[in-house]
């Protein structure tokens, strides 16, 4: 029996869904393994038929997102988050560090027309999540692996090892050691195959925190490279600012900024 799949979108950029539609001819062979039931970007609208797998893209930023998410949970066997937005609140969670009303007023002349919750939050803060796919965007390989495993009736094993490991295996030259680039690789989970270092630039953390991230040491190293506390805060306040380990560094270095001012 083909796995039935629903693809849902909350607040996001649609980039993760594109991992499906963008895969070219492989999509045709994928369709032998799965039956899409609900997938708006592909033209299928049927949100409430029960499915084996609901993939959720996007974070919760409106009341409507939340309502819809509860419906999704009620109509699926496995709920899997797809990408940074759904898994950690995404780039739009940067607003959690600020006063949203002030922000809304800065962007919109009539903030009263805009309905939004104060925070951008991950799916798992609201409903039970069976598995998380990190990445901004997720990769084809992550999705393939998930679907392969689920069609055998098991969830995949989480792989949270560091970008550094993939970088070493690819025999790339470390950009932090050789070029003093403030690379997030030591605290970020792999999945991209160390893409940024392969382009000679530091990782900016789009796959989110790795297993046992040693943020203290890395941030200290950044300071050793000459980064100011404000710049260190900005390194962690990126795509996954709402995760606890990144928050810890953001708070730690923000306190330093405050002390300096005092």
């Amino acid at each position, binding site marked *: 029996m083909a796995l039935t799949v629903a693809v849902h*979108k*909350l*607040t996001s*950029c*649609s*980039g*993760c*869904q*594109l991992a499906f*539609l*963008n895969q*070219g*001819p492989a*999509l*045709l062979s994928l*369709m032998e393994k799965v039956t*899409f039931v609900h*997938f*708006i*970007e*592909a*033209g*299928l*609208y049927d949100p409430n038929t029960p499915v084996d797998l609901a993939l959720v893209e996007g974070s919760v*930023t*409106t009341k409507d*997102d939340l309502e819809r998410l509860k419906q999704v949970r009620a109509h699926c066997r496995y709920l899997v988050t797809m990408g940074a937005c759904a898994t950690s609140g*995404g*780039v*739009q969670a*940067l*607003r959690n560090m*600020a006063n*949203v009303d002030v*922000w*809304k007023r*800065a*962007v*919109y*002349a*009539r903030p009263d*027309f*805009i309905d*939004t919750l104060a925070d*951008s939050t991950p799916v798992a803060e609201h409903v039970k999540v069976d598995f998380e796919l990190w990445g*901004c*965007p997720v*990769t084809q390989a992550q999705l393939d692996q998930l679907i392969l495993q689920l069609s055998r009736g098991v969830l995949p094993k989480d792989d949270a090892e560091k970008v550094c490991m993939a970088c070493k295996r690819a025999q790339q030259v470390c950009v932090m050691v050789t070029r003093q680039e403030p690379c997030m690789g030591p605290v970020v989970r792999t999945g991209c195959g160390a*893409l*940024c270092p*392969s*382009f*000679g*630039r530091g990782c*900016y953390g*789009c796959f989110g925190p790795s297993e046992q991230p040693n943020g203290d040491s890395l941030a200290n190293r950044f300071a050793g490279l000459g980064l100011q506390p404000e*710049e260190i805060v*900005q390194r962690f306040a*990126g*795509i996954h600012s709402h995760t606890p380990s990144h928050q810890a560094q953001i708070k730690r270095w923000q306190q330093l900024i405050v002390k300096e001012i005092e």
Partner: protein
Amino acid sequence: MSEGRKINLKVPFITRVEGEGALALSAKGDRIDTLHLKIFEPPRLFERFLQGKSYVEVPDLSARICGICPMAYQLTSILAFERLFEVELPAHLVRLRKLMNLGEWLQSHSLHIHFLAMPDVFGVDSALQLADSHGDLLKRGMQIQEAGNTLMRLLGGRSVHPVGLQVGGFSRLPTQNAWDNACVQVDAAIIAADQLLQWCAEQSVPDFSHDFVAVSLQGLEDYPINGGDIITSSGLSMPVDEYPQRFKEHQVSHSTAFYSLLDGKDYLVGPLARINLNYHRLPASVRQRAEQLGLHFPSQNMFDSLRARALECVWALNAARDILKEGCPEGPANVDYQVRAGTCCFATEAPRGLIYHHYTLEDDGTVANCTIIPPTSQNQARIEQDLKQAVMAFGLDKSDLELKHFCEQVIRNYDPCISCSTHFLDFRIKRDN
């Protein structure tokens, strides 16, 4: 039609791909009272959280506005900063930027044509349902899409949120192997795109021509993509710096996207606007092929926008081949520059039309404020105008279902993000007879 019949269509949920929207149409007899396309894109407040960030981080963050055209956001911000820092790129880097841009157009256009628009032609809900009956058409589309993706990967590592671009050039130059592979992919896709154009030309297209103003960039010689002045079909021509004086944004209660107006009027951006204003800039061979197939531009019929996209695919692949033929470039991947404070702006052509960025930077390159105007908010007022006229021409006496499908197609002509969501207009119709 019976006198005084009232229509009250409420489409509360156009779903949310790239912009959550709804449609409300109420009519009495043969007069439309209101017709609103409501866009509820949940606000993500990008312009605000870019404040305080270094200009270096802007491209990677602003890319996340849209997963379908991330490069347009990256490149427009980078070009704005390079203008401020007075960076002169060597010719090979300028060519590579264009090559990557072409890749994004190809990827986005083929997604629209095959996944969003083609189901209309066959009267099905989803392209996925065409896999058995029209697998060859889909495969052909995927080949064009894959050529686009290959170009994005060649220069950016991945096609969604690529990582290769930076102020001053690229973080690395492509390898010879990857370059050769791109040549093969592009050559194969050129044949596919020509067949696609022919297919588009063979499909019958309803004629809903009407007056509208088209807006696009215009370069010195070439078909516009990532630079040039702004021109309009009403005869205006202005440097990008004058954009804020002529184009004004305002908010309406039924949308979280801004409405942009040119001198108080709606206008069109995107493939058809570009073709209408720059047809003569297409290479003679591309124009000849179009004419041979019986295609005529300029066109005031929005239903020709599918053909415009296909023609742009043909152009983009030929332009990509010309760049690829010059060989894998050698030399520096990027150039040095001096950061300085100031304000800067730039506009490029995203797949779906003109995109405008404006920044003020502090001494160390920190963003003090910014404005980003994407194509969709510029087209929003135009879509509503079009809907009003087109629905009248189509006939308010048509059945609910016919009206719904028609409105979906009209909206889909403009923008692949909104167009796909309008597959699901959940029409609730109240008729008082």
